[in-house]
């Protein structure tokens, strides 16, 4: 039993810290720290910086341009990035599609798409959820009908995807589509890559409760997709879908985000006052903070235990469901406390202040608007990526055998 990282791992951590200190633009980390909205160019800038160092696609094998890190090294990297308030890697191309192509794509697909992901030539988004297929993902209805004509082998796609994160920036979308209506639910689904500039694709914004445009609806009307854009076998797309959902979830607990957010919260609680004393000294607030801090300390070790099991040859299966549930609960609780800490200034909301170029007047502490907005935005954590209730179903079936 040894909770310490090895000398090599500690050296790796220093290497990551040195890199972040030198290469992470302060302009970007300040935006992340203060809860501001990142522009497309900000995210592309950070991807390019990571790619130049060879660290962008950290889940990929070396032969495809990954750094060849162990599970522990990936954890350290993601943890340090979170502590430094680095922008998140936009996961859709790098962390989701990439591994699927590497596992199920043909040579031509790998050769064409993987370098484009690394270089930022394409901005990918995810076409999984539909209005009628949320937690019940296998109920997707968007149809793809195969045909051959003068222009070649192709699919005609009709239907609607929703909750498409950052779809407004994307030129490509990977979709689960139904290619066989006769087959059992999971068995008639295919995994298709669709060019969003094709005729018949329409993206409409969904404004979330915090006033933000982060997610979208994507409509497909007779969209023609070349058959070569099918990944894996036709009707076997569910295999890709599941692989993508469970692949490499070392960061699903988001412990680094929680550690960073808790440090911020402590700073706020030391600054905000109640009856002339720091809020941190209010017994009720201090108890809430201590509770979540203890839960996070336990979570750090739970997370490392899962990673150690993976590194030792174990399979990260349903354990990632445990990390997801408790990790998101902790993140939500911390953002809830940050909101509470604002007191009456939780309400004033100058949304423009969260975007570039704002020079107007704010109300209350500088972080006030972001605190409430982040709290509301973080409600998504227990819903996306398989709601926490779905994760409990998975635990029940896979771990408890019920």
């Amino acid at each position: 039993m040894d909770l310490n990282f090895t000398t090599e791992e500690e050296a790796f951590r220093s290497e990551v810290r040195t890199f972040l200190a030198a290469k992470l633009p302060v302009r970007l980390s300040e935006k992340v720290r203060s809860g501001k909205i990142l522009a497309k160019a900000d995210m592309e800038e950070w991807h390019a910086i990571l790619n130049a160092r060879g660290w962008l696609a950290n889940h990929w094998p070396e032969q495809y341009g990954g750094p060849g890190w162990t599970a522990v090294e990936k954890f350290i990297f993601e943890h340090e990035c979170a502590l430094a308030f680095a922008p998140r890697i936009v996961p859709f191309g790098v962390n989701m599609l990439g591994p699927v192509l590497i596992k199920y794509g043909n040579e031509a697909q790998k050769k064409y798409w993987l370098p484009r992901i690394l270089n930022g030539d394409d901005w990918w988004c995810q076409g999984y959820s539909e209005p009628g297929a949320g937690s019940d993902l296998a109920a997707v209805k968007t149809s793809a009908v195969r045909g051959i004509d003068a222009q070649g082998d192709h699919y005609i796609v009709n239907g609607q995807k929703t909750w498409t994160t950052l779809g407004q920036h994307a030129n490509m979308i990977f979709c689960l589509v139904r290619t066989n209506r006769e087959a059992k639910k999971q068995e008639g689904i295919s995994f298709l890559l669709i060019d969003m500039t094709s005729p018949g694709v329409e993206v409409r914004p969904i404004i979330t409760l915090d006033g933000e445009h982060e997610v979208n609806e994507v409509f497909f009307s007779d969209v023609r997709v070349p058959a070569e854009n099918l990944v894996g076998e036709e009707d076997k797309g569910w295999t890709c879908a599941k692989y993508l959902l469970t692949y490499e979830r070392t960061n699903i607990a988001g412990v680094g985000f929680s550690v960073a957010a808790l440090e911020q919260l402590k700073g706020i609680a030391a600054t905000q006052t109640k009856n002339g004393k720091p809020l941190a000294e209010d017994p009720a607030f201090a108890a809430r903070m201590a509770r979540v801090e203890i839960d996070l300390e336990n979570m750090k070790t739970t997370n490392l235990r899962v990673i150690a099991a993976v590194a030792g040859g174990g399979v990260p299966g349903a354990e990632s469901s445990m990390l997801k549930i408790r990790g998101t609960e902790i993140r939500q609780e911390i953002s809830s406390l940050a909101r509470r800490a604002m007191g009456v200034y939780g309400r004033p909301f100058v949304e423009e202040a969260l975007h570039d170029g704002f020079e107007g007047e704010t109300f209350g502490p500088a972080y006030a608007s972001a605190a409430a907005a982040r709290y509301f935005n973080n409600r998504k954590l227990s819903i996306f990526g398989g709601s926490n209730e779905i994760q409990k179903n998975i635990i029940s079936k896979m771990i408890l055998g019920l």
Partner: protein
Amino acid sequence: MNFEHTEDRRMLADSLNRFIAEQYAFDARDRIAKSAHGFSKEIFQNFAELGVIGALFSEADGGFGGGGFDIAVVFEALGRGLVVEPLLGAVMVGEALSAAGSDAQKQTLGDIINGATVVAFAHDEADTHYERTRVATRAERSGEGWVLHGAKAVVPQGEQADLFLVSARSSGKVDDEAGISLFLVPAKTAGLSVRGCPAIDGGRVAELTLDGVKLGADGLLGTEGQSHATLERAIGRGVLALCAEALGAMEAAKAATLDYLRTRKQFGMLIGSFQALQHRMADLLLEIEQARSAVINAAAAIDGTDRVARERALSAAKFSIGRIGALVAQESIQMHGGIGMTWELPLPHYAKRLVMIDHQLGDEDHHLQRYIALGKEMSA
């Protein structure tokens, strides 16, 4: 980073688990736990022969372990078996002897390790409510020696103890950290009376009255008035032991509940197929994994030199165990339904033990407040 126990520890845990399965099955345990003696002297002796007590102490003290994870491994197994024999007293009093004892006083360690001497830790008083520095029992100098006056509350297996470690105030006000002294009081000392009763979770506890208990100079352990640090170390070991014991009990309660969900039918179906119960069970699993992490954190921290980090990890663990222990107890009874209310089933006895662990060495609230106070020391 490595979360596997050493082979020695795994072997010890295996032999202890096997012994408990063979000699301490539920019926035997039930007989022992409600016996007039409070525990089985023979079983206690067997534990000593298996090396269970020796594992709790370092080689320098005559044992062959003594690390945080040795305590964790042993007490997790004891928790799975709902063991009532007085090993908690051994680990706490032994730690105080090791930390502060004179060479002559340390001779007792050998008899603790071989099971010949039963020791008990007598610190709580009727109105302390877990506050460690609140010591009203008085110690006065008398010639070369000491005279003790006062009372100690709810000492585990106190009636059968051969030797007590008693805290008493030799100076200062009732809540002062300074002025607390520790004394070794043999059970037969004149002026000491012991009044026992059963505990709701098995075994027995005792109230101690010290009415002019006369001790020689060698009755004092460590330096007069400066025993707070020793007390903290002994309690720290006890806290870790109780946390690990609770973890073992949680695992047993979880296994029993899961087994029930897989076999009990209602409405023509296994009740484990109902989502309402599945989700509650998944929650328990999550919480128990967090509890295990808390115990690992505490076991790793207990041998550290940074006092605040060590004590924070211990309080974090005891808080976590208190909260999660009660949850596991309540939920596993609820998921069993009526049968979970019966004496004949082992499960409710685990539930009782889990809840009562929160009544030893500081409950959830106490340790949360202590964690916060230690945090201020850290940032100050």
